[in-house]
């Protein structure tokens, strides 16, 4: 009863990648085993822990709740696409500075989930961050320093956006002057 493999193509972290997979293969296994993106981790088998959270077309998704074939054609971001060691994403930088991780196993999923949260709510309160973490479990930190990290990241990202807006406004002014 051989079921034919299917070719699944995704754009992951800005790069087009594809692999032939069994139709039943979970997206998380496709990312880890077929594409070699092992930064996304697996912590449970009932979709509770959220260690495997990534973004699919911009939304935070637990990659154990999707089949690889369902992601065909999607735009995916994993922790590997966030920032590099020399140029960390504000979320990574803040987790580092605020000691938001200990073993680091849940961390990629938590960061991706929190990026999803900040997209919806760029300036969350402590309570909103704690509630926003409903889908993830960290066993090491007691969450407090994760909350501080997310608060810091939100601030940095908001400032960067502001600067960006100013830049855009400035370039628009320059543009107008050229007319």
């Amino acid at each position: 009863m051989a079921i034919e493999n299917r070719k699944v193509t995704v754009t992951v972290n800005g790069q087009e990648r594809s692999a032939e997979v069994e139709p039943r293969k979970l997206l998380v296994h496709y990312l880890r085993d077929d594409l070699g993106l092992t930064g996304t981790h697996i912590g449970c088998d009932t979709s509770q822990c959220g260690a495997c959270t990534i973004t699919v077309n911009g939304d935070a998704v637990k990659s154990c709740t999707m089949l690889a074939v369902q992601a065909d054609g999607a735009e995916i971001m994993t922790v590997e696409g966030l920032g590099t060691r020399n140029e960390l994403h504000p979320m990574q930088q803040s987790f580092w500075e605020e000691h938001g991780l200990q073993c680091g196993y849940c961390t990629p999923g938590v960061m991706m989930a929190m990026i999803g949260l900040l997209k919806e709510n760029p300036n969350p309160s402590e309570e909103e961050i704690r509630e926003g973490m409903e889908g993830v479990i960290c066993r090491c930190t007691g969450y407090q320093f994760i909350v501080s990290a997310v608060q810091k990241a939100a601030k940095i990202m908001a400032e960067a956006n502001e600067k960006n807006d100013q830049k855009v406004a400035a370039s628009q002014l320059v543009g107008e002057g050229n007319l």
Partner: protein
Amino acid sequence: MANAVGAPLKRKEDPRLLTGNGCFADDIQLPGMLHAVILRSPHAHAKIKKINVEEALKSPHVIAVYTGKDLEGKIGPVPSSWLVPDCNLKEAPQYPLAIDRVRYVGDGVALIIADDRYAARDALDLIDVEYEVLPAAVRQKEAMQKGAPLVHDDIENNIALHWKAGEVAEEIMENAEVVVQESFYVQRVFPSPIETRAAIGQYNPGSEELTLWCTSQNPHIHRMVLAGVLGISEAKLRVIAPDMGGGFGGKIGVYPDEALIGYAARDLGRPVKWIEQRSEHFTSSNAGRDEVIDVELAGNRDGTLTAIRVKNTANLGAYLSTMGPGVSTIDFGLMITGAYDIPHASCETFGVYTNTTPTDAYRGAGKPEATYQIERIIDLYAREIGMDPLELRKKNLVRKEAFPYTNAQGLVYDSGDYEKPLQKALEIVNYEQLRQEQEKLRKQGKLIGIGLSTYVELCGFGPSKVAGAIGFQGGVWENSTVRVHPSGKVTVYSGTSPHGQGHATTFGQIVADKLGVPMEDIELVFSDTKAISMSWGTYGSRSTAVGGAAVAIAADRVVEKAKKIAAHELEAAVEDITFENGVFQVKGVPGQQRTFQEIAKSANMAWNLPEGMEPSLEAQSFFDPENFVYPFGTHIAIVEVDKETGEIEWKRYVCVDDVGRVINPLTAEGQVHGGVAQGVGQALWEGAIYSKEGQLLSGTLMDYALPKARFFPHIESSFTETLSPVNPLGAKGVGETGTTASIPAVMNAVMDALKPYGVKDIEMPLTPEKVWRAIQNGEGN
């Protein structure tokens, strides 16, 4: 770099982990790698009548299937590593796969090896096992009764051990003005690291070396034990613990599964990977606690405590785990007096076999249980004599002048000033005012509770001769090598095996201060038995106090040698050389100096060394501490209980911990937060539930409440520093304090809130339903 110790430095290990560049077990891919799954017993107790593996073997993906019978005589049983003496310990052999009888849900029955992860799991359904179900012994007190089903036929009444320490003369109890008695159940919980267990075996037929990557907190213990189980030389077995997603005690144990994977990799000549599923983890990884504790505290009406008598009935599960026998005996029984000067104490422990998953050390291992019973009974005693629980504590805490203090069970507490963190915590919460407010709110019908926990715990086991005397099948010393390269860059090897604690940073800080080199110049190596000399790993909050001390001593030795070389080059006497901030200087002669890096080069080139000196700049130390270390502190929980729903609302959680020298306040606070979260989890939400047939009903993350972010209050954490005299760092240990202290703090707070209803105890976890029922059944209702 000077003054790295004590600075809240960012962790060295983080950039790797934050960018997805960690290397956890499941990230390891080897050419030709096979995947293993283990078929496990669905019954708590049954005879295996027949195993039919034919269908599984027909699958084109299945490479091999092994059953317990196939492995008979080929792999030995996995022994316990804590053979507690003088307690009539009866160890039943645990074979890596059950041979003719399964003894708990999750007991391994068959090992399947396939060439694909999914196909391996498919094959689980193709094995047909015929069982004859037997009655099961599940709870310890029932399992001890005559006529209970026997887990092991030759072990009478299922009693694995009967241990006693200390004696309280009957007349002391009889003559006491007050005796308060209570029975507490410290329920079974799961350590639950977010990464489950894993093992990968690779055999090299040329060198005949077997490499085993496994989730181990103590790779050298794994190597020592597994070499015996597999019947191979330790010199041919290399155990590596890769990056690990937490442990909390659950990865101390040497498990049958690791032996199986090592065996299969060698037998098949191909790499084999096994990754535990989460639901499998619940039944097949060692659990924690599960102790019924009966306690009697005796004393006078004025609050003078005279004696404590404790009986612990511990559920050890179906087999003795690696540390299992020591938890409810040594770890628990010698600490029953807690931080109080109680002159007489006795503890009697029964360790009982049951048809459940074995229990082992879980964060604190015996100390949370010991702290729980003393901190809870102190509160009940205070209630009995109408005294504020704070006053009763103050009256009985071991005095600062008494250190080193010998407790009634013979342990010598290294150093302490118990009033210091207590006072600080009281100031933070403004205790007196708080009590007044509580009284006012009580009159308005609001149930506010204040819970204190003035704890002490023992960690950093040592010396090894004591470990031997208490039956621990290993040493408790630690080793470190500090190797200085020609450039002056440094590699530090440590026998501890971190998995989230951040040793690369804290040990780096120790070395940076000692050698005067920047943190970036220091690399740490852990967790590989081929790279690191014999050592004992990470558990029991021993890493800094013992492992960090070894690092400090090795670094001192490097400096000592470097100083001699500098003196030689500068043509001065060694006594005249000072070393500060990485520079060797002739006292009072400016300009006459050498940098650490220059000496590193000289030492390694060896062109001009002092007469008779060996080349290179490297030192090793083996540090065996003279005593345990005893961190202490005060935790205060403030809660409000909703009368109508039984729900518990957080007001504040304040902790002041004294863990000796704090190497890195940021990571130390992180340890406290995490520890508190696990303790609070035990008090309020977590609990293993077995049916009377021995089925685990809380066997997935849907059913077992691992705490989420919104469950917690803001934890207000701070430290006092009372140095330990037993190691050169003055460090005590911080990994387990939060868990040890917080369970009774929370419980005392809730019981204090329910005091108007006369409620003295509710079995943990305090679900709203249980709290509501206690209120309904309470006085005045």
